[in-house]
């Protein structure tokens, strides 16, 4: 059959671009949300004057190196949040990404259409690698919660560059990197996630440990149990099994390091 001739383009029936900016009705915000002014902030708005930047929603930055599973982690997080009706936008700093390169992804939950997080506006940074966590410093503020893996991934040719007389070839001192982050936010929680992953079955589950931290912290509008339900649905059973212990260890870690006023 041919397309009928009256199939002329007309205005599409959908509304213009602006996506729904309200939190989905089914979602009861957790009682312990850090720094959230909720949608009530709108009431204080004065015509023509800017109020303090909205803190609605959640802005998560996940950084690491290629092969650490940062993109998979971001994908799973999006899958879960979308499944529970949240408005999610996410983006990655693109580049000639290949194994070993820097990976940076951002996820914004219920807060607008731009996938890029502005300087100092991240609510949480999941740092899979110390140098990459420090690279995310411009996104942090005193309100940012940082879960940071202290196990370094040495850049491939760091030592070789010293041989070629391009720098001293040394990986920065990790406690020094932690300090540089602590200078911005007190809520930085460094721990050896790679070792914890090993103890949980495999080094490859490090990204699951870090996701567990985030879900355990209560920073997200969904619970760890809800997240894991999504994982069980979208991942092959053998992977779910291989990651289960890592996830629960990560959640414990997140609960142990409860950020700011969330501590009991």
């Amino acid at each position, binding site marked *: 059959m041919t397309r009928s001739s009256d199939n002329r383009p007309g205005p599409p029936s959908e509304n*213009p671009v602006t996506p729904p900016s309200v939190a989905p009705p089914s979602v009861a915000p957790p009682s312990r949300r850090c720094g959230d002014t909720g949608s009530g902030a709108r009431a204080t708005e004065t015509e023509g004057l800017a109020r303090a930047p909205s803190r609605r929603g959640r802005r998560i930055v996940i950084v690491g190196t290629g092969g650490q599973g940062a993109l998979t982690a971001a994908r799973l997080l999006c899958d879960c949040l979308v499944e529970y009706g949240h408005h999610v936008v996410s*983006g990655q700093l693109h580049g000639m990404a290949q194994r070993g390169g820097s990976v940076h992804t951002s996820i914004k939950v219920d807060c607008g259409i731009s996938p890029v997080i502005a300087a100092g506006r991240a609510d949480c940074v999941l740092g899979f690698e110390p140098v990459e966590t420090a690279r995310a410093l411009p996104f942090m503020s005193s309100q940012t919660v940082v879960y940071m893996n202290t196990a370094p991934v040495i*850049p491939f040719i760091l030592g070789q560059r010293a041989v070629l007389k391009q720098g001293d070839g040394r*990986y920065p001192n990790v406690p*020094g990197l932690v300090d540089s982050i602590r200078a911005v936010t007190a809520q930085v929680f460094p721990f050896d996630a790679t070792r914890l992953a090993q103890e949980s079955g495999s080094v490859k589950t490090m990204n699951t440990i870090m996701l567990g931290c985030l879900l355990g912290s209560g920073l997200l509008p969904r619970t760890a149990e809800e997240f894991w339900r999504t994982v069980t649905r979208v991942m092959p059973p053998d992977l779910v099994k291989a990651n289960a212990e890592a996830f629960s260890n990560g959640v414990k870690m997140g609960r142990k390091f409860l950020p700011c006023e969330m501590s009991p």
Partner: protein
Amino acid sequence: MSVAVGRDILQDKPGTRACLLGNLGIVRGALEAGVQFFSCYPGTPSSEIGDTFARIAKESGVQFEYSVNEKIAVEVAFAASLTGARSMCGMKHLGLSYANDPISTMPYVGVEGGMVIVSAGDPSVITSPNEQDQRHFSRLLYYPVFDPATPVDAMRMTRYAFGFSETTRLPVIIRPTARVCHSNGMVTLGPLPSTRNEIRFTKNPSRYVPIPVNARRMRKELTQRFALAEELLAASAFFPRTGSGPRGIIASGMAYAYAAQVVEDLGLERAVTLQQVGAYPIPEEVLTGFLESVSSVLVVEELTPVVEECVSLSAFRRHKQIPILGKHGGHFTEPDSVNPVFPVEFEYTPDLVEDVIRDYLGLEKRDRISVSVPELPSRPPVLCPGCPHRMSFYMAKKVFGKKTVYCNDIGCYTLGYGEPLQACDVLLCMGSSITQASGIARMTGKRVVAYIGDSTFFHSGLPAIANAVQADDNITAVILDNYITAMTGFQPSLTSRTPGSDHDNRQSSIPNRQSPTAARFSIEEAVRGLGVKEVYSVDPFDETTTLKAFKKAKKGTGVNVVICHSPCAVDRRRRDRGKRRPPFAIDQDLCNACSLCVLALGCPGIMVEDGRYSIDQDLCDGCAICASVCVQGAIQPVVSVKT
């Protein structure tokens, strides 16, 4: 219900909300519009569009091909459109320029089935040699150009563009920037159509043959069709105006998303009228309506001031004298607040957009804490462990020496740039290694080496070889055949085997065209057919033969070709389910830390820590190239080494 898609782009559950990558939004939009033909040449950041079509081609019934180059992709897709098919082709911004010849005449001839060209942009020059603003194709060649701000836009615009193209008979360009291609956004899936355009080619030479007598008539019609396009766009949903304030902000592309975010975050809805420009030409009535409702204008758009100039012209025509601010400095009313002003180069950031908007509205500057970032080691892209290009570069340099000029081309092998391989003295664009070698060799009188990969060779290296042969240029073209288009994500090249045809190691993990009998191409026969007499085929890991071939080529006269055949190390492992050759290690008793391996190869598998050399067992691919470089014999297969 909401689901995350990506895995299941073909699901037919209208109303489903999904979080979709921009590039996948484009695929879904095309599928919902009933696309019947898709061709592309891969190029970051557009590659996922073609790769997705490659995977779903059979199931969806879309005719698919990875074309040999973008010009061919456009021409095949255009001809498909002349049969009534809704056709689409994908490429990056540079590909659009490569295809400029057919593109410039297509609007004259006009399409039958709707035709959409997706040309992804790369502001900030992340994975390209330049950035460019394809929105100019609107004025340059009479193309409606859609400029999505989000994956949602990308999907809706693509879906709309096919019917729009049929009505106006104009081919259409969709220009998502890399940010849009590679961000995820929430979309609502529409239905997949149950019917498709009827396919029939009806002869009508005066309509399809743009010889001057016809072209002059077509030219007149083109003006009318372009006017119709503007009229339809004015009624479209791609120019939403929000807010009610007297201060105008007009924005396009990802910069619109940033501006909308600032308006939302700062609660400026009643101070500002925000106008999105989603397509070009910008309908005059959109500009008029916007200008009537505001007392000043801030234009927020990346790259060239396309919107800014349209707004300025429209205001001028209307004798509307209001401040129009954007990229042109000095417009700000307060003398001391002329900065920040928008730059013409690189992509914007949310911070820049917020700063300028605050400045524009006279709001106080953002309270920004200064964050000091310590000096951090970078992680630049390098040739992978086991990469055959490294061996080819190393061997060629051994023979041709440091003084020879090495012209390089577009692909992974560009990473031969700099220390230690020094395999890239000149670079311009796809296929330019051979032509640049010609120019330099002819003027300097010295033999020049050109490096080019298999996919790039078929893309635009063939005419370059013919040109060099006819001029008898003194060049050695080294064709690096790794059976794959590796840099853009392992798409098949003409030397790849069609999956399933046989067990040869030359196959891509992404399916190629639908025909399982697609021919296997021989670079040897191709260059011989073009008149090259001296052709050497080698495996670069076979040191003796390769050195011999390069030595002969160095002594040769005129054009000679060395073809280095060896599969891409990463793709080989992907296909072999991670299986690697046994790794090597450095015998610490024998290593005298002479650094030769590092200075010659720069393989990321070699680690140097406090003067101690070792090989990362996880990275090593067992290619043994470092073992052949080591004069101490310290590098040996891991089984026989004391570390």
